[in-house]
């Protein structure tokens, strides 16, 4: 079997695991859906984006999509990799002829599929209930920002996996970071309600740019939301994270090999 074929099989294997893992299903698919329903129940009608009046339903659909990207690509991936390391699985895989990158690719592949399926679900719900007008512009922006966001947050998960010593710590960092960043980035609360200094802090991090790009694609008529600043920031974060990951990534849990 070729390496590409093996990577594909390993990814399918990882996805089969996902479909059996109820807590993963709830956490990565049901939970965002509930958030979408809640936000739309609380903030009915219109909100403001870029100085314009927009439907809050569409606003929150775009926002929750960016939240899902962070939660799954960063939180779940980080937790899965550090757990596998702690269990000795990464070490075990490294002792087989399979190149180690295939394992990482399969985990990222699983993440990509889970994110896109959840996003598709959210878009459908948004189109039916929350004034999301699906257009070519919207779909182009959606695909681009989901791809960039997933790349960025997966890279950050790999980088953090090298820093986090235990899976417990890593599993806490994911949801924590996703939630705090969501408040800073106009995901949960529209930016026109926030003080400028808070918005400025949010702009340093990739979630703000993922969210902004998606909100633009969803809310601005005839716009894909694609712009140099948001894409640039995401690419820089991805590159830095990959660099950190390549230098720090560990295949064995810390403290191993002292005897």
């Amino acid at each position: 079997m070729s390496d590409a074929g093996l990577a594909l099989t390993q990814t399918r294997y990882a996805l089969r695991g996902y479909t059996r893992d109820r807590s993963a299903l709830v956490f990565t698919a049901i939970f965002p859906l509930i958030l979408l329903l809640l936000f739309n129940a609380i903030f009915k009608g219109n909100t403001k984006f870029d100085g314009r009046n927009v439907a809050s339903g569409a606003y929150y659909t775009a926002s929750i999509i960016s939240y899902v990207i962070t939660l799954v690509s960063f939180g779940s991936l980080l937790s899965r990799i550090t757990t596998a390391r702690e269990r000795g699985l990464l070490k075990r895989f490294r002792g087989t002829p399979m190149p180690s990158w295939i394992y990482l690719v399969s985990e990222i592949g699983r993440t990509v599929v889970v994110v896109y399926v959840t996003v598709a679900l959210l878009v459908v719900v948004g189109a039916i209930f929350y004034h999301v007008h699906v257009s070519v512009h919207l779909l182009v922006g959606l695909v681009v920002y989901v791809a960039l966001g997933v790349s960025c947050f997966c890279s950050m998960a790999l980088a953090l996996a090298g820093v986090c010593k235990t899976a417990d710590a890593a599993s806490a960092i994911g949801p924590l970071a996703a939630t705090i960043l969501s408040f800073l980035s106009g995901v949960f609360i529209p930016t026109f309600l926030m003080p400028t200094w808070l918005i400025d802090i949010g702009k340093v991090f990739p979630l703000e740019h993922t969210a902004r790009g998606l909100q633009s694609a969803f809310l601005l008529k005839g716009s894909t939301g694609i712009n140099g600043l948001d894409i640039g920031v995401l690419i820089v974060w991805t590159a830095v994270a990959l660099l950190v990951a390549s230098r720090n990534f560990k295949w064995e849990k810390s403290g191993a090999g002292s005897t």
Partner: protein
Amino acid sequence: MTAVVEVEDLHKSYGQVERLHGISFQVQAGEILGFLGVNGAGKTTTIEILEGYRSRDGGRVSVLGTDPARANRQWRNRIGLVLQECELDPIYTVRETVSMFARYFKHPTDVQATIDSVGLNEKSDDRIGRLSGGQKRRLDVALGLVGDPEVLFLDEPTTGLDPVARREMWSMIEGLRSAGKTIFLTTHYMDEAEHLADRIIILRAGVIAAQGTPEELSATLGYHTEITFEPSVGFDLERLRAVLGATVTLEASVVRFKTNRVQDDMAVLLDWARREQVVLDKLQAIRPSLDDVFVQLAGEATAAEGATP
């Protein structure tokens, strides 16, 4: 005979602490080598250097003609591993897991045959989360075997298993012997090494303390059968010592002495008992396991090293 594993003057330190002080040994093709030591003796360090996980600080190491420090894919296709700690994903079934591992290797064995060979045929479609500790460990062995390796590294395969599971693991490993596999087995149970291994190396604080076949070890390390009995009251210990030697001891009405000539000394004892009209209650000859030898050696190491971390 060809050497599958060759180690010469192997050194390894962690920081300031030298863990392996220049050990040398070989494992021949088709041989089961028992690598024995207490925790901290350097077993896992050694096996992980052989497996290509860990670097060394000095010496020469060759496994199947390759330096494990330069392990490549071809080499990994020829070795099988059972790590000390590896908790497989509980969400997959036994068959799924073995099939997936089979895909990593160039010439895998038949998946179902491998599962059968470790005695998990009835558990093939069970999820790993539902297996017992012993079954999980046997699955680990299946994953070590599915690549059809020339040499198998077993790192403490029975640690933490109950006695029944341990016996099952033993008979499985004995099955591998008849299949002609070369096996490097670490353990801290002497009885395990004695039962399974063709040759035993006792590692003590990073130094080889003793090595040889179980028979050789028992010969060099003073392997005495102990005879004990409770004599009826009123016997004369001095007259017993006169026929059996001064090593005979009496403690809490139990007489014991050690011998390497069981049959002769037993005849002398029975003769003496008839003459003196002494009843020998609870008479038994106990062939001590190598365990005692090992505990003695390990004890010396602990005393010499002081408090080990």
